[in-house]
Structures are given as C-alpha cells and as structure tokens.
C-alpha cells in the first residue's frame, strides 16, 4: 500500500444552488487536483447535491487554534455597540 501513501488530502466544498455559499462537506484523497475534483463529484454529489465544487489541499488551509479561541475572539466580546439593538430609540420614530 506504500504506493498510495503519498496521495494528498483535499477538502471539498459544494455550492448547493446558485446564489448560495460553498460549504465544506468533507475530504478526499487524490493524486492531483483533477482526480480530487472527479472523485469529489462521485463521492459527494451522487444525488445532485451541488452545482459547483471547490477542492482545496488540506495542507493549504490555515485554521485558528481552538485552544486559543477564547483569547482570539475576545476583542469582539465587549463591543455590543456594534449591534443595532444596542441603541434604544423612541418607538414613534419609524423605519430605523
């Protein structure tokens, strides 16, 4: 099985319908991008699950570290004034 040991892993993203975002659905092993694309089609869209596919080498994805999530996302925590509901306006003022 050593011959397949080098097959890189690709992450698969599908756009389900025009107008929607591509969404991560899983991963696949392939020798190159073209094979990744064809195998992703066969494995992840057997029932017309999508109209567009992205394949990305897993090693090219840079992810945030869950262990640092609290500190990393902390700056947004106390900025409630960024939300429209923060502002208390008189009810007679319309369309705001």
């Amino acid at each position: 099985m050593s011959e397949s040991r080098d097959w890189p892993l690709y992450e698969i993203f599908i756009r389900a319908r025009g107008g929607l975002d591509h969404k991560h659905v899983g991963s696949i092993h392939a020798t190159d991008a073209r094979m990744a694309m064809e195998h992703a089609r066969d494995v992840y869209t057997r029932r017309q699950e999508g109209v567009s596919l992205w394949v990305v080498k897993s090693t090219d994805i840079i992810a945030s570290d869950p262990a640092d999530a609290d500190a990393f996302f902390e700056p947004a925590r106390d900025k409630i004034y960024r939300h429209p509901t923060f502002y208390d306006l008189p009810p007679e003022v319309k369309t705001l």
Partner: protein
Amino acid sequence: MYTQALDQIGKETLHTACADHAALEARFQQRVDADERIEPKDWMPDAYRRTLIRQISQHAHSEIVGMLPEGNWITRAPTLLRKTILMAKVQDEGGHGAYLYSAAETLGVSRDELIGQLLDGSAKYSSIFNYPTPTWADVGAIGWLVDGAAIMNQIPICRCSYGPYARAMVRICKEESFHQRQGYEIMLRLAQGTPEQRRMAQDALNRWWWPALMMFGPPDVDSSHTAQSMRWKIKRFSNDELRQKFVDFTVPQANFLDLKVPDDELAWDEQAQHYRFGAIDWSEFQQVLKGNGPCNRERLAARVCAHEEGAWVREAATAHARKQEARAYAQVS
C-alpha cells in the same frame, strides 16, 4: 452502512486518563454533557479518541466489505433496472466507506493504516457480511433487514458528540433509506409472485432474521463498553433497546408480506406494547466474529485480491500526477 454495536468489539479496556488530566477531562465531559460537539483539534481523552478510531474504522470497513455480497449479484440481477439500482446501492456503500475513513482520519490515523488493518485481518467488520447470498431474494432481504438494522443503529449516531462522525452519519442516513426501500420492494414483488418466488423470499427471511438481530451486538448485561460510550454520547441507546425497536418496526412489515418470521416464540405483548421474541443463539455470533462464519475467508480474500489487482492503477495515477507536476514546474522555470 452498517454498524453492529461495533464499540463492543476489541479487547482494550477504557481507562480514565491520569490525574494530571483530571481538569481537562472534567471540562471535556462538561462540554459533552452540554451537547456541544467535539471537533478534531479540541482536547479529548485518549480513550475517547481510541474508541472513536476503532468504532469509525470498523464502521468504514463494514461499508467496504458490505459491497461484496451484493456486488456479486450485479451481473445476475433479473432486469436492467435492478442492475442499475444495485450498482447505485453498491456505489453508495463505497462512498459511505470513504466518508467514514475521512472522519477517522481527523483523529490522527491514516487511511492506509486502517485499510492495512482490514486487509491483514487484524481489524473487525460487521459479521453480517460473512453470510452468503445464494439467491436474488437475499439482495431483497439485505436491503430490508440488514440496511434496516443499520439505519436503526445509525440514526442516533447523527447526534454523536464527535462532529466529523456525526456529520458523516447525517449524509449516510439520508442515502440509506433508498437501500432499505429498494430491498423491501424486491421482497414485496417476490412475496406476491409465483409459489417458487414466495418460497425464495421466505427462505431469505429465515436465513437473515437472526443475523440481523445480532447486528445490534451482545445483550446489555454482557456489553462492557456501553456505559462509557453513553457517557461520552458516542452511543445514545443500548443494544437491547435498539434491537427491540427493530423487531417492533419489522414484524408488521413481514406480516404485510405474509411471510413468517422464523421465531416460534414471537408474540405481541399488549401490555408492554412490544413484540416478545425468542432467545438469540450468541454462540453463532461469537463463531462468526472469530472468523468461522460461512464466508469470512472468502470476503477477506476478495477484498485483498481487489486491492492487489488495483495496485497498478494507484501506481499509474501517482506516476501521472508526478509527471504533470514536473511538466508544470518545467514550464514556469
């Protein structure tokens, strides 16, 4: 897609992590208790990781080996439509294996390693696939009973605490319903057919009923891993609960076919609102698990053969990719 209370199989015991990890463990359990999902890079106890690797990989192997008993009917299916349906089903099983190997890989094992364990016989797969499929009715019975039992086992895993496994299972369960319905439809046609076809359907039910009940794993009293797996929310219902539910769902379906479930003790318990059924022969289950089922050797040999005969394709694909890469590199430099 087939699980068979796979968390039952395997010798290692589940330790609680050492004292240094007590705080991390407590935090982990809190997250699980709060129904949060655990993701690949999150901290998790080693025993949780090991349990999942074993269960998901055995589940993946079962999908792959599960292609064999049905695959050998593709060329003999009675009509072109039945052939195409069966091919689609077998292709689904291969896809399910691929989803599950991917989910297992997020836990830090490689697919090659896992496939190696299947091929060298050290990994387990669902023992249901070690039974033969001598007639076309077996294809019907597999879809109806084996996939039916698998669905019963798998739906709760869609809410498993480990995110990648749960998400793979959602995709699989969506596809599984087709498998069960096409199987029941085959049984329905045979049951409404000639006396000979009816006999064939009854014979398949006779042979698959008890093995299907065994797919839920040993009785709760003998099931050593259940409590821990439930605490970790890898498992949501006990083996006996799922088995009872399967019997309650399936007996009326057999009655509709006017076929007889091969159990003289089967009876409706009005008070409990459940079917009571006879004792399961667990010695048979243990024998098949040990490798002494009717087809254990044949299945593994077929898998090894397919892997070896496909080696040149994998080698050629690798060589092609290297060549393309070298060419692209030569063009830019």
